[in-house]
């Protein structure tokens, strides 16, 4: 089998599905790429927020008595 095989079918296809002739890119895609990168950035939580959440969780575990008071104030 070589690249000259299937010539009949190749000719038939090319008569009916012409090769793509306009392959040049008409615009710079970098701005679109940047938007895509921005959209897919994972949400970053600052370390201070993690520390605050840890302190709050620890407080709830160590002093469960504050839970009703906390709920009352919510």
């Amino acid at each position: 089998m070589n690249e000259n095989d299937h010539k009949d079918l190749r000719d038939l296809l090319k008569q009916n599905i012409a090769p793509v002739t306009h392959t040049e890119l008409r615009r710079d895609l970098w701005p679109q790429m940047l938007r895509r990168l921005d959209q897919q950035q994972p949400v970053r939580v600052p370390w201070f927020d993690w520390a605050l959440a840890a302190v709050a969780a620890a407080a709830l575990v160590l002093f469960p008595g504050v839970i009703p008071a906390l709920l009352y104030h919510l």
Partner: protein
Amino acid sequence: MDLQERFAAGDLEAFEVLFRQHQKHVYAWIVRIVRDSGIAEDLTVETFWRIHKSRARFNPDGNFGAWAYRIATNTALDHLRKKRPETELPNDLAGHPNPDSAVQRETRDQIRQAFNRLPAKYRLVATLALIEEEPYDKIASAVGISSSLVKVRLFRAVRMLRKQLSSLQVRTPNHERK
């Protein structure tokens, strides 16, 4: 540190340089497969998104262009798999100079339908080898298979296509000679 090393380390400026160097080639390759400029632009961005995501796996001493072609081909193949086979073959970039008669138009539609019904991996190889006349070794490198497997896929695609065309009573020149 050279450009590819900086890219692999996550440097956005290095990625931008590589993007600008290769976007035209990647687009030109994808548009030959999907045959629609708008879809090809979106898939080019998707290709570079995948490249950016897997930058840590890229060998900085390797060939970035060849790697990009491989990812672009997989991205285009995923698109062909998702697309319903009944949809019209996009062909906005290839003109047909002669106005068709109704019979020619019908034959053309039947041939396109038969081509569209090929499974995606066979349609990809058939498009590149038969319509775009890309060499087997280039297709093999872009798809990530051997040249022998490209020939096998092409042989199967041709067999399926001949069967479909025969059931639609479309005669190929070879068929007419028999």
